[in-house]
């Protein structure tokens, strides 16, 4: 279930970064936008919930509509972010700007309580979640099913984008945008389109995640989360959807969740009590992530599955 939503997110990011070369470290904001939009659309007005949360909006729409709202919100935020990054800055500057945008968004939402309930975040009552009248077990599997369908659909869409002419255009823009402009491609519009689609992916991911978890708060979208996603993209293989999938599997499941199982390794447990520090394994997880990124960039920047260059009439690129 988490793999699914993370996959959606990773594909979106890959579309923007791997294929189109847009260094969007504010991607996590599109996920958050999707999550918040879904929440607002399902939670009902503030007073009906006992008035302990403050936020704008508040409707009670059924699941599919709220999901759609999440997708749209993600896309809109994606475009907004794109506009801020439109200036032709060098890639790492752009990355910096995006990073700051995501930090700023988090701070503003935290600080401005009436907007989205500030730091406490928003909570959906379980009774609003789909299938909630079923046994929790069934509900969980139903969610897995929904996410699976969403991922399958998204994957098909993704392939159509990246493998077809649109994909080629995006790659051209990434590799040399002056040349791309010279042959008549409107770089600005392309960028906006890419970030809209990528944002939509992010929004969908966020909406599904929040539907399952039933709560969302600013601490759920620290900028470090984007780093984790980026690592997955880099390790798996930039620009290659299959690679990104594998990368996500590696990073998402093995490292972040697998580290929890490390807790049961006796040697590590002994080390923990020796140093008198709980949560050592959690810190280890991040250290491993960082090291992995550096190692990959050093040794194999293309990732595990490098991008497959399309062949044109027998010539290899």
């Amino acid at each position, binding site marked *: 279930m988490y793999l699914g939503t993370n996959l959606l997110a990773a594909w979106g990011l890959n579309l923007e970064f791997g294929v189109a070369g847009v*260094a969007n470290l504010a991607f996590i904001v599109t996920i958050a936008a999707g999550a918040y939009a879904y929440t607002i659309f399902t939670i009902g007005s503030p007073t009906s919930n006992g008035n302990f949360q403050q936020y704008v909006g508040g409707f009670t729409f059924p699941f599919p509509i709220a999901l759609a709202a999440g997708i749209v919100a993600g896309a809109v935020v994606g475009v907004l972010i794109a506009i*801020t990054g439109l*200036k*032709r*800055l*060098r*890639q*790492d*500057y*752009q*990355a*910096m*700007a995006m990073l*700051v*945008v995501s*930090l*700023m968004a988090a*701070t*503003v939402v*935290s*600080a*401005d309580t009436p907007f989205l309930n500030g730091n406490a975040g928003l909570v959906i009552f379980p009774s609003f979640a789909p299938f909630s009248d079923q046994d929790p077990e069934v509900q969980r599997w139903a969610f897995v099913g929904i996410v699976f369908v969403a991922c399958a659909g998204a994957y098909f869409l993704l392939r159509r984008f990246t493998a077809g002419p649109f994909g080629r255009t995006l790659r051209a823009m990434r590799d040399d*945008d002056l040349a791309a402009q010279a042959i008549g491609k409107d770089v600005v519009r392309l960028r906006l389109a890419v970030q809209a689609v990528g944002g939509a992916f992010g929004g969908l991911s966020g909406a599904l995640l929040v539907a399952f978890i039933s709560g969302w708060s600013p601490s759920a979208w620290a900028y*470090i989360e984007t*780093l984790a996603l*980026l*690592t997955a993209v*880099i390790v798996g293989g930039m620009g290659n959807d299959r690679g990104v999938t594998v990368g996500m599997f590696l990073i998402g499941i093995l490292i972040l969740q697998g580290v929890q199982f490390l807790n049961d390794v006796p040697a590590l447990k002994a080390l923990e009590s020796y*140093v008198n*520090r709980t949560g*050592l394994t959690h*810190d*280890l997880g*991040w*250290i491993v*992530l*960082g*090291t992995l*990124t*550096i190692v990959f*960039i*050093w040794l194999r*920047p293309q990732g595990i599955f490098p991008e497959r260059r399309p062949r044109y009439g027998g010539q290899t690129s």
Partner: protein
Amino acid sequence: MELLIEAIGFGLAAGAVIALGAVGFSLQFGISNILNITYGSLMTLAAYIGLFLIDRGVNPWATLAIAGVIVGLVSVAFQRWLLAPLARRGTRPFAIVIVTVSAGVILQYVILAVAGPETQSYGDQGGQTFHLLGVTLAASQVAIVVLAVVLMLALHLLLTQTTLGQAMRATSSNRILAQSCGIDTDRMSDVTWLLSGWLCGATGVALAITTAGFDFSIGQVFLIPMIAAAVLGGVGQPYGAMVGGLAVGLASELAAAYSNPAYREVVAFAILIAVLLIRPRGLFGAAWATRRLMA
């Protein structure tokens, strides 16, 4: 009106610390063309080294100098053995930034694993309080302002009056040309990173002194205002970074004084974004320098 003057005073003190850090950051960018995000975690490292020393009775200002040296050495090593080789292989600037971010994360979590998540403190280092012209500052804050000014002057003299400084500037503006003039650009890089690393370490300790309470995330948190200051002044321009630091410090304090204090930090972010969008070369960046910033 009273509040305004007081806030300006606070802004000066805050700005001095930010300026200190921003200048180091700017120097590093100037000479190696790299946005070194590890800078943040290195400041944290310095703060903890300082804690170690101060707890054993070393004078805070001596600690500042010592921590600076340690971080300076670490910075040189970092640049020489990780960043420079990557650059030589033609790794894209973005990938290098990711490497610095990752290195920062690793360092931060190692510090966390070793020192624990608890809040640390140097204790009350404030010293006497001075009231001048409606502005209230503690002795330590005054000392840091003085330190910042002195260091900037020294840096200025170094860069303009000495051969070494001129060589550094030459390498900064055009490495290849400098090489053909016979300047050992690798040595220039080392020297610059040593100096800026020292500034990084000094800033880390200065931060710990002024905030009175810090934990493992202090460097990362304050990196953003420093980058904002550096960019505002024009990356690669140390004097610009000083002015930028002052501006960011003032803006934060004024925001806290007159509006929702929670917007303190947003101010730094907003400045950064605004500069990047409107005038990426910053206030003092030369027009030709923008070539480096554009894709």
